[in-house]
Every structure is written in C-alpha cells, then in structure tokens.
C-alpha cells in the first residue's frame, strides 16, 4: 500500500476531505465514502425537488373537482405516477443509506472507508444510470401505471415510457443491493477494537437491519420488473391471464419486495432518530438493546406481511387472516422504539435544536402513521379503506412524515460535520414548523377524505370533497415553502455560515471526535471507543464554542461498566 498524504493543502486550514483533492474529476471518480455520500446527497435532493414539483402540480389540479384546461386526465396520471416513482425509488430508498449512511457509517466505526470503496462508487453510478432511464422514459411517452406497476395494466396498456422506467427500477435495485452488501461487510469487518455489537451506535444497527433487507428482498423486485419488461415486449408472460398467467402473482412478487422496502425506508430513519434524541437530550439512550433488537425484529417480520396489501385481491381467506395477524405483530417492535425514545426524553436535559425539532416531529408523525396502519391491517375495515385516500395519508405519514423528516433531521444533525459550517438555527426552526404544519394540513385531511370514500389516484371527484382538497393543497404549499426556506439557509450556510466546531451538539460517538469537516482519513489512528451514549465525559468548551469529549474518561467509564 502506498502511504497516504494527509498534508494540509492550505497552510491556513487543516486538510479536510473537501480540500484534499480539487477539480470536478476528483469528485466524479472519488473513492472517498464522504464524497460519495455528498454526491448522493446532491442527487437525492435534486430528485426530491423534481418529485416535489410533480406533487404540487397534482395537488394544484385537485383544487378543482372537475376537468382543468391545463392538465388532462392522462397527464394527471403521469404526474402522480412520476411523483410516486421518483420519491420511492430515487429519493427515500437511497437517501439515508446512500447520503448520510455513506458519510457517517465509516466515521462512526473509526474506519477509513467502507469495505469496498470501488463498489460504493459503482452503486452511485448505478443510481445515476437508473435515474437516466427514468428521464428517458419521459421522452418515450412517460408512464402512468402508479408506482406499483400493477399488471395487466402495466403489461398490456400503460404509456410508452413504461419499459424504460422498469429498466431503471431494475438498475436502481442493484444500486441498493450493492450498498447493502457494502454496509453489512463494513459493519462486520471494520468495527474497531472494543466496539462490540452492543457498543455500536443505533444508527448502525438500523443500517445493518436495512442492509439485510436490501440484499435479500431487492432481487425479487429485480426479477419481477425484468419479467414484466419481457412480458410487455412479447405481449405474453406469466402475469398475463389470457395465456394462463396470473396477474395477482405480480402483486405477490411486488409486495414481497415492497413491504420490506417500506422498512428499507423507515429503519434508517429510526436509527437517525435514536441518535438525535440521545445526543440532543444529553442522556443515555433508554433501552439500547430493545431498540437494537427491535430493528432486527422488524427486518425479519417485514418479510412475512406482504399480503396485507392484497386483502381485496381475492387471495384465500386463510391467507388474509394470517397476514392480518402477523401485521399486528410488526406494530410491536415499532411501538417499542417509540416508548424508548420517549423514555429517553423524559428527564433528559433537552436542547431544542433544529435537529431535535425534527426528532420530535418524527415521533409525533410516526405515531399517527403507525396507528393508522392498524385499521388497514384489520380485514373488515380495510375492505372499506383500501385504495382510498386513507391509505395515501397513512403511507405519507410514515414515508414522508417519518422517513423523510428523519432524513432532514439527520441532515441538520450532521450538516456541521459534513461541511464544517453552522446553519441558521432560527430559520431552521421556522422551516421545520412550516413543514410540520403544512404536512398535517396536507395529509390529515386525507384520512377524512379516505374514510368518507374518496378513492386514490382519481382525476375527478365529488364536489362535497372540495373543501378537504383545498385544505390539503394549501398545506402542500406551506410545506413547499418550508422546504424552500430550508434549501436557502442550508446553501447560504455553505458560503457564509459560522465555522463549525468538531462537536456542536455534544455527541459522544466517534464522528464527533474528528474535526469538522473530517480529514480525508477520518482518523490518524484507530480511535478507542467508549459507550457512545454515555455523555458523562462530554463537556462544553467555551474557547472552542463546542463540546469536547474527554476520551480517557469516556473510555474508562465504559470499561468500568458505567453509563449503562
């Protein structure tokens, strides 16, 4: 191995990963997990913007119950499909592992990089290729199947861009798989001496559980969309009822992946919340093992409940009952986490930083999202609620209100670490409040719409629903404003933000013990680890305007069994 050059490039600043190399190519061909994480971040946020614009178009159409001159029913179908597909496949699935996970995971382990840096870059370019396919599909006529691609509509009808977008989904699946492989191996093989599984940050437990799902569930999606492409191309296939195929088989395959996939989306978010709640309450996380094992339990259960999306598909009553029962049991580990977060907050000395605002928003919104899953898991009520706005509201509370809010909370939590600058806290809180209020206006109304029978994905609706749609659309504009403000103050901070200390919030895990932004190598020597949720050796340093961790005391406390 060649020796590494960590010499500072500028005399006036210590070298960091941003200054280590210069030029566009040094980014595009980088093997540094931090830079790859930043590239994912940019890519995901751009996609989020595009998906968000589509959502606002859809919401704006719904201000009127009838036809509008500027958007036909066909265009409406394409707009909501594009919105859903972008948000699921390009944003939420890759966002936390790809952007924040990539950046933080090796540093939390005190490692120099992920296990396979080249594979990591390859995953990123697979993402880019998948996104390019989605863009191409727009030129080829767009797609209007809904993000679920149900057959036979998708195999026999559907707009001209269906095949390219399915190819894109296939490629994105492999991007996700390779990230999962990388993270599992990294966590197994690169934990530093002293970091047992039970000393590992909960964010990493969550990423680990997520990675297991990514590796074992995603190939099912891959083969399913591949078969669908072939079926569409040849006009015959195993999902084609006219030839003896089975369209419901598609639903089984699709949900065998996509239910676990909802946990690919939410588990990393839960991991972030565990970090945020503990660090900003300056209190040892309550029930570490419960939170850790509930991640694993969720990962396992998630493979056994896919049929709850198919209660009305005509699957056998016995299957319905079994899937309903197992679905209830998934709610238990989710609730375990919520109770442990609340117990951590209780008697914590809470710093109400922006990240913490997002953490609290998550707990509130996830609770609603999880609880509304229960009437959907009950057979009798689901017959009424299936394919209505109630489902739309439910999954937005969990995917957007929880997974995405956690991602944005995590972004604020690690922003000073990633870019070495502080953002404006006041604007941060204003934006968070706008997003929170706008979100609830947008989606709480949809529970009402759905329970009163408004079906999802409809262009026209009964005039009596208009008031709800008005509130909902108004809320979405408020939310949009919140995100706009967020983008402005975050970008502004890159140019004019105060310089960030190494440890602005008082964290005790390893990423807070290297400089902000971290040097190219993260750590000169493998650091010694203590209990990452023991904050007793963390104190405020007036001169540094940040917290410092007394490493000796921290490690010693862990060895004497303190802090548990």
């Amino acid at each position, binding site marked *: 191995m060649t020796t590494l050059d960590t010499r500072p490039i500028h005399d006036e600043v210590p070298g960091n990963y941003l200054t*280590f190399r*210069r030029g566009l190519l040094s980014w595009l061909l980088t093997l540094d997990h931090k830079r790859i994480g930043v590239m994912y971040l940019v890519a995901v946020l751009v996609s989020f913007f595009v998906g968000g614009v589509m959502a606002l178009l859809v919401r704006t159409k719904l201000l009127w119950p009838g036809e509008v001159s500027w958007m036909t029913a066909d265009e409406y179908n394409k707009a909501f499909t594009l919105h859903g597909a972008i948000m699921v496949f390009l944003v939420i699935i890759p966002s936390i592992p790809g952007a924040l996970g990539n950046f933080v995971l090796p540093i939390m382990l005190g490692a120099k*990089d992920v*296990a396979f840096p080249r594979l990591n870059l390859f995953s990123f370019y697979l993402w880019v290729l998948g996104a390019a396919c989605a863009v191409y599909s727009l030129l080829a006529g767009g797609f209007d199947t809904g993000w679920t691609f149900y057959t036979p509509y998708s195999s026999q009808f559907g707009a001209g861009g269906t095949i390219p977008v399915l190819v894109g989904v296939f490629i994105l699946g492999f991007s996700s798989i390779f990230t999962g492989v990388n993270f599992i191996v990294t966590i197994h093989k690169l934990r530093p001496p002293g970091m047992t599984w039970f000393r590992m940050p909960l964010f990493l437990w969550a990423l680990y559980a997520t990675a297991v799902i990514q590796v074992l569930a995603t*190939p099912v999606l891959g083969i399913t969309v591949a078969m669908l492409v072939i079926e569409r191309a040849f006009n015959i*296939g195993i999902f084609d009822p006219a030839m003896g195929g089975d369209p419901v088989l598609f639903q089984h*395959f699709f949900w065998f992946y996509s239910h676990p996939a909802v946990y690919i989306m939410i588990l990393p978010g839960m991991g972030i919340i565990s970090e945020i709640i503990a660090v900003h309450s300056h209190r040892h996380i309550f029930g570490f093992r419960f939170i850790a094992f509930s991640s694993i339990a969720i990962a396992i259960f998630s493979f056994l409940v896919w049929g709850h999306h198919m209660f009305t598909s005509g699957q056998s009553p016995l299957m319905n009952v079994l899937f309903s029962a197992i679905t209830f049991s998934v709610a238990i580990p989710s609730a375990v986490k919520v109770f442990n977060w609340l117990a951590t907050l209780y008697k914590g000395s809470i710093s109400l930083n922006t990240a913490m605002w997002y953490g609290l928003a998550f707990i509130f919104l996830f609770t609603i999202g999880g609880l509304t899953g229960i009437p959907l898991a009950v057979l009798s009520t689901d017959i009424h609620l299936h394919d209505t706005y109630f489902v739309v509201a439910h999954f937005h509370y969990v995917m957007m209100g929880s997974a995405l809010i956690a991602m944005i909370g995590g972004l604020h939590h690690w922003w000073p670490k990633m870019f070495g600058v502080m953002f404006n806290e006041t604007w941060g809180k204003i934006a968070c409040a706008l997003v929170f209020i706008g979100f609830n206006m947008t989606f709480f109304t949809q529970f009402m719409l759905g329970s009163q029978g408004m079906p999802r994905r409809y262009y026209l609706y009964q005039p009596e629903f208009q008031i709800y749609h008005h509130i909902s659309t108004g809320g979405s504009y408020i939310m949009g404003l919140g995100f706009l403000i967020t983008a402005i103050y975050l970008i502004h901070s890159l140019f004019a933000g105060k310089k960030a200390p190494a440890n602005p919030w008082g964290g005790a895990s390893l990423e807070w013990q290297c400089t902000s932004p971290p040097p190219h190598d993260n750590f000169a020597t493998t650091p010694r680890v203590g209990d990452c949720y023991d904050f007793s050796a963390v104190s405020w340093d007036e001169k540094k305007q940040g917290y410092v961790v007394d490493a000796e005391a921290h490690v010693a406390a862990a060895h004497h069994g303190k802090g548990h």
Partner: protein
Amino acid sequence: MPTRRSLLSPVRSDAARTVPQRDTPFDDPKARFQAGLFGMWLFLATLAVLFVSAILGYVVVRVDNGDGFIPANAPAPPSILLASTVLLVVSSATMQRAANAGRRGDPAQGGMMLVTIALALGFLAIQAVAWRQWVTQGVLVADNLYAWTFYVLTGMHAAHVLGGLPAMAITAVKAARAAYTPDNHRGIVYCAMYWHFLDGAWIVLYATLWFGSLR
C-alpha cells in the same frame, strides 16, 4: 474562507495527481480478502434469491395450469442441454483447479483459466443450439407460456454466464502472467465462487424445466 471556497473551486491541486486513491480501508491484505469473501457470499445470496423467485414464478404458473400448460405437440427441452450441463460441471472443476493453482502461485493457473473460458463458451454455444432447435421446430417465445418460460429462464441463466465472462477474461489474463500468488489470489477465488454458483443454479433450473415438461 478557503474551506468553503474549495467546494466550488475549479482549481486542481497537485495533490490530486500525486497521491493515489485508497481503494480499500484494510491495511492487512488477509483482512481485505476475508471481507471480500464475505461480500461475495452476500452477493451470491442476492443472486440466489433472484433465481429462486424466477423459478417460483415458473412453478406457480406451471402448477396453476396443470398439464394444460404443455401444448399438445410441444417438444421436451432439447436433450442437447445434457451436453451443456456436462460442460458446465466440468468447467466448474477446471475453475476450481485454476483457483487452487492461484492459491499456490502455481503457473498452471493460466492454462486452467483458459480451459474454463473455452468450456464456458462451449456451454453458451450449446445453449444457442438448443434455442435454435426449438425455433426450427416452430416453438417461439410468444407462442405460449411453456415456450416463454423456457426461453426466459434459460436466457436469464445465459445472461449471467455472459456477464461473468469479462471478469473471467480479466482473471485469465492475470493468471496467464501467474499474477495470483499465495499472498494475493482474491480475484481468482471470487471468480470461482461465482462460477460454482452458476453451475449449481443451472442444475436446479434445468431439473425444474425438465420436471415441468413431464405431463
């Protein structure tokens, strides 16, 4: 503030050229190898799920339709596939010998890799012949699900063989230079793992298709 300007600065520093990129976090080559093996196992687990789901899809439509699945005068899968199966099994053995030679640093690794690639190409050629036989007998992919599943499943496997060939070729070039040594034989071992997997996957796939063609 230089830290911030650097984010957008188009200037290239000399460091970008002089310091090679680190392509592994492991200092110890043994640890790197262990990690690679683990990664390969996970990758093969992914591929296993892929193949199992495809086969499951086949089984579902086969069972759903009973014997009506097989059209009246449809041929059985070409028996020439037995020959390709033999070739693939033999190639697995030669691949293993190549890997073993690589582990020892034995120059025989190069020859064995070449034999393996030749057998792989032979396998693909026979698969193509088998497809041709069905096509000349007038069994086309869009005719019925019996034909469709045959072409799709064998095609899927062939695509994986084809996809492995570039890696095999690179490995063979290195092996021809006896580049694999007791200290570093990662590439050839990963190659062998992938190859054995495709061997096993083919046997399961072929057996399934063959049983499925029985009335």
